[in-house]
């Protein structure tokens, strides 16, 4: 046994190895990404970036059938994509253990919603485990596989951003000796024709009843005796906040939040004067308790369902008095995220903003095009929605007789492969009239630069067939497919105008590598003070390496050489050729 500081995600990867896990499949998504990143460096297992979360879960289901312990990892919204196989693998059960690791994002540090994955566990009628720190995250992976195999069920291992990304001390254990199972051949169990599924639904209900019994004595759920009138039921990171706020109070820690141990909960509730149920996001456990007729004194009315909880909000809500503390310094300007200097999305958005186009957006770094100075995104829903959304916009506008407002779909390469392809097929097939811009930077950018089918490398870095996005679009039937240089503003503007004028579906694929992922570092530009007239045209590039220095009535632009990455977009906007680079 050794001690190390690991994030929850690193600990889950460690736990997977300790549990004898063999196949891990994932699509990158904050805050879940690092689990597969760590596993991709391991030998003797198969760890892959799958095309999307549905594929990842199906791969894991397949390898469970083949007889090895398997896990799919994804962020909370990824579970929506994987919901189809999830709901039915809950019927078939597993062969070797099957775990779905899902990371929720209370506070939405990097997400479009803050849905609560525990509802999926209830809908699928399968167990949901929730660790409170990294060491538990590690241990719960093995426990999840054992639970999966002993109850013949997939198991959800749910984390939140603070569990996945906080680091704490982990005591590692030796890997378990796990015997692989034979390839499963059992048609009534695994082929979900209605006649078979009807029988399996009965099994699901019986299994859930057994899981409820098991929950009563499971080590996941632990009562910590204490003093005081208020007793707490808490899970995940909220458990730590409760301990911080009320270190001496009695606490029932729920490591398994579905199904809950009803007798144990009733006993705990009866042992305290007042009951507080502290959970981030929805009042999931609270509602289960209320349905049992248990009185909850402090629930979602005390602890808000939006955003993260803190030890302070818990202390204040339960004690009924505000904790004195200083206010933030007022009037500070904000620092929102922005495109990196040198980012290949900058040139495209400069032109899209100039042409005042209506943009159907997607999920990735390029969602930042919605922010000033570009303010060029008008809808963004979920992975892949840009193209299908643009198609709907074009059909709606056509029916209303609105002309000259051809919508533009903006999507990245990884997102296009994830779920943009189906939208493009639909658009071409159903006579769409929109411009699709695929911003190809050869990586999955926002999550830190992961491989995908278009990069020519697997998760471990091994060579793989490189998908050609242009050829794929042509195979789909798109007649107008052009590749463009994301840094060449003149060409971008001209081609975009041509394609907007042409009827039907047009696809533009812009190519420039992600400067972060590929560590692109070109010579910085500088401003020639003698010729700069202070017109501020360059500032439209929206780059943090640029600033304006007022001097008397006008002033001049300045480039921070430490930040500039030499992409040259600002120099193409300059009206007096005053942006130069020494080459």
């Amino acid at each position: 046994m050794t001690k190390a500081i690991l994030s929850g995600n690193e600990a889950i990867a460690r736990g997977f190895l300790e549990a004898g896990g063999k196949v891990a499949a994932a699509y990158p998504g904050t805050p879940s990404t690092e689990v597969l990143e760590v596993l991709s460096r391991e030998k003797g297992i198969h760890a892959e970036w799958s095309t999307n979360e549905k594929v990842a879960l199906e791969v894991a289901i397949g390898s469970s059938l083949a007889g090895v312990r398997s896990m799919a990892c994804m962020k909370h919204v990824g579970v929506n994509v994987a919901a189809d196989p999830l709901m039915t693998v809950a019927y078939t059960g597993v062969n070797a253990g099957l775990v779905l690791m899902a990371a929720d994002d209370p506070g939405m540090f990097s997400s479009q919603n803050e849905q609560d994955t525990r509802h999926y566990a209830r809908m699928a009628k399968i167990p949901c485990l929730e660790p409170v720190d990294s060491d538990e995250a590690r241990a719960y992976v093995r426990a999840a596989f054992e639970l999966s195999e002993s109850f013949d069920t997939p198991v959800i291992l749910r984390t939140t951003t603070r569990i996945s990304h906080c680091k704490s001390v982990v005591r590692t254990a030796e890997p378990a000796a796990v015997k692989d199972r034979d390839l499963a051949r059992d048609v009534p169990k695994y082929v979900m024709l209605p006649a078979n599924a009807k029988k399996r639904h009965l099994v699901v209900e019986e299994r859930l009843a057994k899981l409820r019994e098991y929950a009563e004595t499971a080590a996941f759920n632990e009562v910590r005796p204490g003093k005081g009138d208020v007793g707490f039921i808490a899970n995940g990171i909220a458990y730590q906040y409760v301990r911080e706020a009320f270190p001496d109070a009695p606490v029932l820690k729920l490591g398994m939040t579905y199904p809950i141990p009803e007798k144990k909960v009733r006993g705990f509730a009866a042992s305290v004067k007042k009951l507080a149920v502290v959970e981030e996001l929805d009042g999931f456990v609270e509602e289960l308790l209320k349905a049992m007729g248990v009185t909850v004194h402090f629930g979602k009315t005390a602890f808000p369902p939006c955003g993260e909880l803190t030890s302070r909000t818990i202390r204040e809500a339960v004690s009924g008095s505000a904790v004195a503390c200083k206010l933030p310094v007022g009037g500070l300007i904000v620092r929102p995220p922005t495109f990196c200097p040198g980012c290949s999305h900058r040139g495209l958005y400069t032109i899209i903003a100039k042409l005042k186009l209506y943009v159907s957006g997607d999920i990735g770094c390029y969602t930042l095009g919605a922010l000033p100075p570009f303010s060029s995104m008008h809808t963004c829903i979920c992975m892949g929605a840009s193209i299908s959304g643009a198609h709907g916009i074009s059909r709606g506008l056509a029916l209303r007789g609105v002309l000259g407002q051809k919508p533009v779909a903006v999507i990245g390469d990884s997102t296009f492969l994830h779920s943009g392809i189906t939208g493009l097929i639909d658009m071409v097939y159903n006579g769409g009239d929109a411009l699709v811009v695929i911003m190809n930077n050869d990586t999955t950018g926002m999550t830190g630069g992961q491989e995908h089918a278009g990069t020519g490398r697997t998760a471990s870095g091994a060579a793989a067939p490189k998908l050609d996005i242009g050829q794929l679009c042509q195979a789909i039937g798109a007649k107008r497919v052009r590749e463009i240089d994301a840094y060449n503003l003149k060409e971008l503007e001209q081609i975009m105008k041509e394609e907007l004028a042409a009827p039907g579906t047009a696809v533009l694929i812009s190519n420039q590598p992600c400067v972060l992922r590929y560590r692109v570092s070109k010579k910085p530009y500088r401003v020639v003070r003698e010729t700069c007239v202070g017109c501020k045209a360059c500032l439209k590039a929206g780059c943090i390496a640029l600033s304006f220095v007022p001097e008397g009535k006008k002033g001049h632009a300045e480039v921070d050489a430490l930040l500039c990455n030499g992409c040259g977009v600002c120099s193409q906007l300059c009206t007096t050729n005053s942006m130069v680079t020494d080459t």
Partner: protein
Amino acid sequence: MNAFNILIAGVGGQGVLLTSKIIAEAALLQGLDVKQSEVHGMAQRGGSVLSQVRFGDQVFSPIVAEGEADLLIGFEPLETARYLHFLREDGIVVYNTRPIGTIGVSIGKEAYPQDIHDTIKKHASKVHPFDATNVAVEVGEKRAVNLVLMGAVLRFLPLKESVVDEAITNSVPKKVLDINRKAFLAGKAKNI
């Protein structure tokens, strides 16, 4: 010991996470319980970045509560000011005086606050400003601001220098270890 609470604030890309990793690792080497919190993803793209480290005999929450930070390490003045209310009454601030503009400043919509240093002084009692970027440039590695600051705050940490040194060796990639150690020593030698 009671939990010692540190906030590390800066701009995405400045290396905030490495500094917090070194401190956490050093605390572990000293036999303490430790928790560290950080945020990935969209927030990292040139945005405001905050990392938190807590260590002591037993640590529950990985998050430092308002009014409970013992030490605020600021990589940039504006980002330092943003978290001053987390300091306890006699909490210490060590920060890099070199400003980095925001996107609002770059597009000419906002001005960087000229009185930022006065603001920081007004809201904290023990303030130690210095140009860490300049020290890093002098050492020969402009990106080593994080190790310069690490060296500068060493005197305020209830951690032994030997464990911090070992943590640096464990956390910094081998091929850049020498230059980073130089940056650390330059920060430590800085009279702040």
